[in-house]
């Protein structure tokens, strides 16, 4: 466990950089987390996915896998990989301040 500072606020993150306390996340932090993950600018479509992931986490207690994202976020799998080339489910979860989704599919 370590700490990171986003939007001027210190938060705790795990060794992979995922928030350990999703309640500490604010939308203002997202651009800085994204930048660290290699995404220079968050477009409206990025936000659509990030907000969806956040919503799913609040409803179900875990973030969606790529397949679920492709079916429910309004953004298809192909485009998800264009938006988040290093893994959409993982990166969207990181930027949305929720734990890394666990699933094999």
């Amino acid at each position, binding site marked *: 466990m370590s700490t990171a500072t986003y939007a001027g606020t210190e938060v705790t993150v795990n060794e992979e950089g995922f928030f350990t306390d999703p309640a500490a996340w604010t939308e203002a932090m997202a651009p800085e987390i994204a930048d660290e993950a290699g995404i220079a600018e968050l477009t409206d479509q990025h936000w659509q996915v990030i907000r969806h992931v956040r919503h799913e986490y609040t409803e179900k207690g875990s973030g969606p*896998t*790529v*397949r*679920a994202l*492709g079916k429910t976020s309004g953004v*298809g*799998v*192909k485009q998800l*990989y264009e938006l988040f*080339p*290093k*893994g*959409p*489910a*993982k*990166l969207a979860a990181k930027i949305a301040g929720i734990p890394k989704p666990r*699933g*094999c*599919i």
Partner: protein
Amino acid sequence: MIEKVSIIISKGSLEAVYPGLIMANGARAEGIEANLFFTFFGLDAVHRKHHDHIRLATVGNPGLHLPTLAGALPGVSAAMTAYLAKKMAKLDIPPIPEFIEMISDTGAGLYACKASVDLFELAKDDLIEQVQDIITVGEFYDKADGGQIVFT
């Protein structure tokens, strides 16, 4: 961290095809570059006519804990395949055609082995459109260069 993986699928039974697909999809989910190579009976997974009819091997499959003769009875393979498909759907594991389409959408490369395509007298048109190319072993090694190779 692994950066690239090339997965060779060489058998055409359900229990041989799914693990390769899951490995490839999982690699892409982690941001790892992935290529899939379909060779020998593994070609069935990308064959237009066969990819929706991949069955579980119920003969010579000790993991099923079925008497060999029972596994050979007519309908047993189809019934067990249907049973597994139901269980997989519950776990959100897609059917093979949908899974392969999705893996292609993740940006993974899908390739068919030239020797196998020749052996079965197939053409590119016999294969699903997601197959990018029919390639030789040498071309495969070129694409696999710098990454890990997994043979299933």
